[in-house]
């Protein structure tokens, strides 16, 4: 038990058949939910606590509602994450609610907040507890919890769990230390096929490592978020879209590496896993952001007026461009013509699509700029300016796509609007997701 690797998120107690059926029918088997913004310790591995604040958290009603939505989509288990869920108001009531709906509960805890009463409550509800604890030394535990003096409290929490009856067949207990950089799943995870994580303010992300928001449960039903997500669609079609050595690995049928590690270390959730031992000598084959755009869109200089892909997200991305006097849209005074803003947006979305298909087995489609609307010109770019272009796919319909774009220089927005792209292909992207 001591020293065993802690699994923060749903462990794979689901059979391969259950997972395959969930994928076939586009349903969930589990969800993870963050309750509470932080915790009673600044946990070094409290990945979620670093990105959340106490403001605007989901209400208890909203949490119950999303749990019910997940259940209706097939989820059988709820994993409670967060800095320290014990600090969440009426956590015991929430656990009883989840259990009353027929779902299992797993809770990640650092142990410091587990009182004797709470431990008994957990045991009575057959909650699987995953305890982050390094029993080897006080210093190690304090490092893990990033707070001096937590060791005794954590030990006490562990004792309360044991006294309550843990571990048992119905109420498992998993204990172990976690390396500071390893709040990520590893080889063979693929949990994105059947799970997702709901953050405390309602954002839905694929998992604790792949922290790209794909929607918010306050704005959309969970069903629609999962159905519409291009990130999840990419992961479902990973065999065609993973770049680099992971795509050709002999174990690709059952493993696509850790998408969280890929995202956090390269900026690209479709990159090969840099931490996989098989890629140790193949790091130069793994693309990383920022990525030079030359070669991933059809245009060449001087018509290519964007430089690097900086970020990718849920149907969105950010590109950089430095205005040069070689650009065809620059006048004799060094000012960039307003028409160039549309071209910047169009090339940026082309770069986003081209990067996704880099090294994959799918061919890219040509896109044509066929319209622009709701354009606001707020400033003029000049030679020497470095621009950031943010693009987001708004709507796709048949061969058409509407893309929202913003062109900025530092923090000043120079232009924003929508462009319409027509793709020379049978379909822009095939649909996938729950209910399809």
């Amino acid at each position, binding site marked *: 038990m001591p020293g065993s690797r802690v699994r923060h998120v749903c462990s794979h107690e689901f059979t391969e058949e259950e997972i395959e059926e969930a994928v076939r029918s586009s349903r969930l088997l589990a969800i993870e939910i963050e309750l509470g913004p932080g915790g009673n310790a600044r946990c070094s591995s409290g990945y979620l606590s670093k990105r959340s604040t106490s403001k605007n958290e989901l209400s208890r009603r909203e949490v119950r509602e999303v749990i019910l939505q997940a259940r209706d989509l097939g989820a059988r288990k709820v994993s409670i994450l967060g800095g320290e869920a014990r600090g969440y108001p009426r956590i015991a009531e929430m656990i009883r609610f989840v259990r009353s709906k027929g779902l299992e509960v797993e809770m990640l805890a650092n142990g410091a907040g587990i009182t004797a009463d709470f431990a008994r409550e957990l045991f009575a509800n057959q909650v699987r507890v995953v305890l982050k604890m390094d029993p080897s030394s006080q210093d190690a535990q304090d490092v893990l919890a990033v707070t001096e003096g937590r060791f005794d409290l954590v030990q006490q929490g562990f004792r309360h769990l044991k006294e309550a009856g843990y571990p048992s067949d119905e109420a498992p207990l998993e204990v172990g230390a976690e390396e500071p950089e390893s709040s990520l799943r590893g080889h063979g995870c693929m949990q994105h096929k059947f799970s997702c994580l709901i953050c405390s303010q309602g954002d839905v992300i694929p998992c604790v490592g792949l922290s790209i928001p794909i929607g918010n449960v306050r704005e959309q039903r969970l069903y629609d978020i999962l159905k519409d997500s291009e990130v999840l669609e990419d992961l479902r079609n990973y065999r065609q879209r993973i770049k680099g050595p992971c795509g050709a690995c002999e174990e690709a049928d059952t493993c696509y590496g850790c998408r969280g590690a890929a995202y956090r270390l390269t900026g690209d959730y479709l990159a090969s896993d840099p931490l996989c031992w098989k890629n140790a000598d193949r790091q130069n084959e793994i693309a990383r952001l920022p990525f030079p755009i030359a070669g991933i869109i059809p245009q060449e200089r001087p018509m290519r007026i964007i430089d690097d892909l900086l970020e990718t997200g849920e149907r969105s991305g950010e590109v950089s461009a430095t205005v040069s006097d070689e650009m065809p849209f620059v006048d004799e005074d060094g000012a960039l013509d307003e028409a160039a803003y549309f071209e910047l947006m169009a090339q940026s979305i082309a770069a986003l699509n081209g990067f996704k298909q880099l090294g994959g087995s799918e061919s890219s489609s040509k896109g044509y700029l066929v*319209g622009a609307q709701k354009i606001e010109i707020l400033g003029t770019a000049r030679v020497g300016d470095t621009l950031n272009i943010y693009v987001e796919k708004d709507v796709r319909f048949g061969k058409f796509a509407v893309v929202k774009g913003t062109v900025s220089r530092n923090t000043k927005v120079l232009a924003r609007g929508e462009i319409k792209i027509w793709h020379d292909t049978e379909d822009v992207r095939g649909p996938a997701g729950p209910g399809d």
Partner: protein
Amino acid sequence: MTEQEIRTMVNEILEEYFEIERDKLLPEMNIFEDLELDSLDIVDLVVAMQKKFRVRIRDDERIKSIRTLEDIYLFILALQEEGVSPGA
């Protein structure tokens, strides 16, 4: 959302986004021949309906069958009955 509310909101889209006069917005009107929308306009129509009704239409195949204004009303009504629209 009642059927009449849906009709009213669809008409508002066509008046506001496409500047079609209200007296032309009759259910039997063909959106291409009578209201003079083209394929690019259909994309904008889909965008506007998504925002107005807070739905995701995306690649719904039924869009391709829409010919009249009545077809649009029935399409939105069907989405509501299917529980696709959070505004329902």
